[in-house]
């Protein structure tokens, strides 16, 4: 079974799992969240991305876990940006319920068929002389800890940087938790 078809199957399975809680009445452990309709995208914080990907729809409303797309954050320094195949896993079927949704999803399909990758604008950047190990932080803080540094991405229509990501800000957390402040742990 290829990786691609595994993703598609997982995507379909996820759709089914996600659809049920939204339709059920009462007694559900996960609160139902509906992402708002955005009429004025110009007032949103954060840079415009080539595809208007809404984390509040995917991670918030559909409850897709962060690690589903950003898969290598638990094992690597790199959090991992999802491949176009990951998007296609669902959107090969899911076409969108409104014209604006359909327009964005169409971009995914067009990029896939034309073999181009979307060039996402990077939000969280650290200077080149810092080596930040994502996996150490997730190991220490758990897989639900992404919002500590990245903010409530589940509520963001367009991702923007919430934390200053300055060294002082990093050190404060290290101080609170009494973990290492040694320079050469991150700067080498």
């Amino acid at each position, binding site marked *: 079974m290829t*990786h*691609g078809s595994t993703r598609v199957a997982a995507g379909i399975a996820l759709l089914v799992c996600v659809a049920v809680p939204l339709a059920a009445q009462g007694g559900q452990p996960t609160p139902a969240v509906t992402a708002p309709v955005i009429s004025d995208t110009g007032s949103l914080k954060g*840079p415009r991305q080539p595809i208007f990907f809404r984390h509040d729809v995917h991670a918030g409303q559909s409850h897709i876990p962060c690690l589903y797309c950003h898969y*290598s954050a638990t*094992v*690597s*320094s*790199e959090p*991992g*940006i*999802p*491949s*176009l*195949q*990951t998007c296609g896993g669902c959107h090969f079927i899911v076409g969108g319920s409104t014209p604006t949704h359909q327009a964005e999803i169409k971009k995914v399909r067009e990029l*896939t068929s034309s*073999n*181009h*990758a*979307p*060039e*996402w*604008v*990077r939000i969280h*950047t650290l*200077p*080149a*002389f810092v*080596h930040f*190990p994502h*996996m*150490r932080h997730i*190991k220490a803080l758990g897989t639900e800890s992404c919002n500590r540094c990245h903010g409530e991405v589940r509520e963001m229509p367009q991702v923007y940087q919430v934390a200053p990501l300055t060294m002082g800000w990093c050190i404060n957390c290290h101080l609170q938790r009494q973990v*290492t*402040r*040694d*320079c*050469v*742990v991150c*700067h*080498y």
Partner: protein
Amino acid sequence: MSDGMNRRRFLTVLGATGGGAALLGACGVGEEQAQKLIPYLTQPEDQVPGIATWYATTCRECPSGCGVRAKVREGRVIKLEGNPDAQVGRGHLCARGQAALEGVYNPDRVTDPLARNAQGQFEKISWTDALARFGANLKGANGHLAILTGQESGSFGDLVDELAKSLGGRHVVYEPFAFEALREGNRLAFGTTAVPSYDFARASYILSFGADFLDTWLSPVDHQTAFARAHGFAAGNPAMAKLVFVGPRMSLTGMNADEWLAPVPGTEGRLALAVASVIVRDRLASAQPDVGRLSGLLGRHTPDAVAAVCGIDAKTIERVARELAAGDGLVVAGGMAAHYPNGAEIVAAVNVLNYVTGAVGKTVQFGPNQNVEAGTFGQMAELVADMAGGRISVLVVTGTNPGHSLGGAFWQAWAKVGTKVVISPYLDETASAADLVLPELHPLEQWNDSRPRAGVWALQQPVMQPVYATARAAGDVLLAAAGKPGSFKDYLQTSWHAVHGRLGHGTSFDDFWNDALAKGGVASAASVEKVRLAAGVERILAGPPDAPALDGGAHDPVLIAFPSPTLYDGRGANKPWLQELPDPVSKIMWHSWVEVHPDTATSWGVTDGDLVVLQSPFGAVSAPVWMTPAIRPGVLAVPTGQGHTAFGRYAKDRSFNAFDLLGGAANGYAGRTFTVRVSVKTTGDHRFLATNVGDPRELGGGEEIVRSLTYAKAKALKPGDRPFRAREYPVYADSAEAGWAVAQRTEAARGNYAGHQPRWAMAIDLARCTGCSACVTACYAENNLPTVGEDLVLRRRQISWMRIERYWREDDHGLQAVVTPMLCQQCEQAPCEPVCPVFAAYHTPDGLNGQVYNRCVGTRYCANNCAYKVRYFNWFNFAERGGEWEAWPAPLDWQLNPDVTVREKGVMEKCTFCVQRIRGAQNQARLEDRTVQDGEITPACAQSCPSEAIVFGDLHDPASRVAQVSADPRGYHVFEELNTRPGITYLARVVHAEEA
């Protein structure tokens, strides 16, 4: 840091105030430009961003064929390491192998097929067009076809054989250094042209006649590992082999010898027979069958008979004979000794010597033969003659560069060939003169295999997608042009089906193939075969002992052209790492030289750097003099490798070409003669030599830096002895030291420094280090070190975190060379730490001397204070794309290690003990809820070292190997009396001498 000296107090004492610190906002750190994140279209299954994937393949930088593991990050190979599963190399890699990365990412690679147009210029054409032309050429050759390749002992060689034959032509193999004398010498002595394996590890006495087995001879990496086992000193098992090197020029191998004998060039064979005659005369070894046949030969070569001719006195010959016969001896001949006109007879004489000592079958093993049975220079000369005679209408060249090493007569013959097609990644001399150039993939990008030794099949696979998608594998090109179906990978797998048939043992082909890919090949044992003395061996070296006649004026000095251990036959010249790697013997970079004994130089009135014109009957070159005691007076030596007229920006128009001095005719054993007599003319011109000797970074005569012991003293050491701890701080400093110790313990309990921490430390065994400099290039590859170019090297601004220092000594056996790796000592009480005004240099809790690049403002006080001079400053912006000092023009920057910061101008840097590897291991251990194990972290230098001289680990762990090795009585610290408390313990060198 203690109360005695801390940063604040230091600055107060200096009188500096905080005012000057206003501009400490580090330059170059500002608003980052918006970066883009480009995702995969389809996620590859086995790749996780940020985690490397390793592929096993085979190195092709010399004919040895060591196994290599390629570290690939995000689809780019960024580091090569030895493959521990491989039969050749066994996990180690030499400097040339490390530098293969600069071959695949070379900025001067050919990217498109090129054809010569009507004006004689190259123009780009399509592959369809190129293959059509090439195919037409092959068809139209009508048997007047020759395909010229380098040493190809595997499937590609077989394919070329088949294709050439099917087209009515022939396959010629050309390697500038092809061991013809070895093959012919073995045939003269034993009736077989096979080249045996030499078991250096088993030998207790090694006598080398010219064979530079640590430099370039046969399989230098394996030889070095085995030599370290035999010659290294282990306290528990101190039987240390003795190495005696015989040759007019010391070479790196000679530098590691316990004794160096410098005979008259060409008389090595007579000397070997004299040693053999003593062994037989005095019955020092058990008599071998047929030895009676040698009585005439040996009778003519008594020590007294040869002493005068060889220039070695008879008493020495007698002593060497006694020492050799006393244990498991091994005598090897090669290198210089195999490059004279009588080279084959010299090899045969050494074979006779091995025979009478009983080494054949023990340390000399026929059976597991080394595969160098490829072409000869004679066959190449025949090809040149055919070319000159107009009998070759199509010449295809791939994997070899005859244009560089063959010179004048070759080019004249080349002009008479109808069509010349070259398949090469680079526009070297041969490609630049071709009619059609087809861009080839680099060995790291293509499928192939090789058979470096009997019983070993080494596999080579692409470790990444091609850097240039327009390049193709030579095998694919030949198959397509010849109109044959299938790809070269298909051909390769077909021949591996045959291997599977022999060695598969019931596994499926797919399992067998995948296993071979993972391990880098397969191996089966080759049993040792018996050999007997051949008929006629007693007729070698006929006539009274004399030196062979050489081309050139009879009274002119003899010149030896030797293969450079860094550039080899020229193929390394387009790699800046190798150009900037100081030659292990001369420490000269970016240029060639002529080795002249100081007495000879004085008699000519020249000194280091003076240019002399060397003229042989075949050509002339202008060479700068390098005065060295490591050569026989009156003899000259020049390295090969420089003097290219093409081959890219790093190689072109640099220095002189040693091959220009040599003749193009094959000699008696179908080899090339690399020795010639040259007339020498001084010019009065001068050229500064780019060298790191005499640097302020190499202090004094090295007596305190490289300590050595005689073998007798080393054997007598007991655990707990401290022969080198004589010098400590003086008595009057006792109370101060005690006070500091108390203060330090208090400081050491604070914050991050409290509790149990590792102390990362290293132990370097100088009895094993040979000075080969593999560690230096490995460090360049791992840590993004920039090469600075010859101009800056002349200003002593090279940035080699690890350098090899070489010092000369005299002992009772004469000249000795001692070497030591010198790198940041990670001092516990580092002189560089208190003087940094911005806390960029400080001591980490885990024992490292940390250097924080983004804090550094470039006062350079730390480098000033460093006693070891191991701190390096970025005077220029080596990372600036398109800048004047750009060290990594695209695609060389693809090689950069993403785990290591690339330093900017104005920043100090130094060895970090590969802290990125330390952090990587610590991160992995944390993920797996365990502690870091001893041996899990290996810095790049330690990983590459063929002698396994460097040990790394946690000194606070009493069970670690580094703690045990550091406690060895031979251990010492460099400049111990400065009380810097280095984290590197050196183990003293051990020599077989009365005085060390």
